[in-house]
């Protein structure tokens, strides 16, 4: 299905075998990832539908099967969130009603997707029931990305001096199907619209899940403190790359969203 929102966004609904009568779960993938990589190959869609949850997935603009325009403004995080909300409207998500667990929507985000989920939960407490925020950073790992060096690298393979820029660039080169020129526009848009966790704090129940060897997702403790009463799960020996497929992560998310 493609939304009219620039008729460019690829989103899907995955029906459970046996509907548990709970609100759907929207999955929001990370930077340079996709629904297929972040949620399907890792078993998330299967485990959630097996738990009786209807699952919504969306490929963010510039990712997966969505289109990847080469302009910067369309990638502004505020516009990515607006697109996600439009998907929720198209999927028939209703505003939360007290005592009706089938209304509203639950969110699971990873990395950049967690940033968007945090902001969505803060902006739309009438819509979002609960959110699981995986591999989330208090500061944008993309904010100090050296765009000029990346552009030069793409043009003539010049070496990138800045370490985290170089490693993100490697990630973009390695990730199957990643569209590096489009992703650099997204980086530019994120630099212009930085994450400010304190600006609006979700009041909905949150579960933070982070690998204890994740060097990109810094600030989990700080974010959890900011959003009072939220829960934290540390995944032993997991990194930013391999935390997402962890069975403990999925089981904790399913349990948390089932409450």
């Amino acid at each position: 299905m493609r939304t009219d929102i620039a008729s460019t966004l690829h989103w899907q609904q995955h029906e459970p075998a046996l509907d548990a009568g709970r609100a759907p779960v929207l999955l929001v993938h990370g930077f340079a990832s996709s629904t297929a990589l972040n949620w399907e190959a890792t078993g998330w869609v299967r485990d959630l539908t097996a738990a009786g949850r209807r699952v919504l997935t969306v490929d963010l603009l510039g990712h997966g099967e969505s289109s990847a325009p080469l302009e910067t403004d369309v990638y502004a995080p505020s516009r990515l969130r607006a697109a996600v909300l439009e998907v929720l409207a198209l999927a028939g998500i209703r505003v939360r009603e007290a005592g009706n667990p089938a209304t509203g929507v639950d969110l699971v985000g990873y990395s950049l997707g967690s940033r968007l989920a945090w902001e969505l939960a803060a902006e739309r407490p009438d819509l979002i029931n609960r959110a699981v925020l995986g591999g989330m950073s208090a500061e944008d790992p993309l904010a100090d990305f050296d765009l000029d060096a990346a552009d030069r690298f793409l043009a003539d393979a010049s070496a990138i001096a800045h370490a985290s820029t170089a490693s993100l660039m490697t990630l973009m080169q390695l990730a199957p199907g990643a569209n590096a020129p489009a992703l650099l526009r997204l980086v530019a848009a994120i630099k212009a619209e930085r994450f400010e966790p304190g600006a609006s704090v979700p009041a909905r129940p949150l579960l933070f899940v982070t690998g204890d060897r994740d060097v990109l997702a810094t600030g989990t403790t700080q974010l959890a403190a900011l959003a009072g009463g939220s829960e934290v799960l540390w995944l032993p020996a997991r990194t930013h790359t391999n935390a997402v497929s962890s069975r403990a992560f999925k089981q904790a998310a399913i349990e948390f969203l089932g409450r």
Partner: protein
Amino acid sequence: MAEISFPLPDLGEGLLEATVLEWLVKVGDQVERNQPFVEVETTKSSVELPSPIAGIVLTLHGEPGDVVLVDRPLITFAVADDSAGIVGTVPQEAAPKRRVRLSVVLDED
């Protein structure tokens, strides 16, 4: 019983190895076809691998943290001798079902 081993599949883009993160099954478990049996990580992502067949786990080739090479054995199953081969499934014997009834006047001469 017969033993069938499966190698680490090519996970794409020319990668030659992967790291075992966590076995989702243990020796002696009955595994169904398409049931995830291991979580592995490559340099770019981590994935669960579904079992290509149903069988009982005989051997897990590697501990969490071990690097396994593409095309080297990853898991060995014991399968029943009358299960299908490498491809396909055993046809299920079911009572014949019909929708068509014969209706003719036989004018035998």
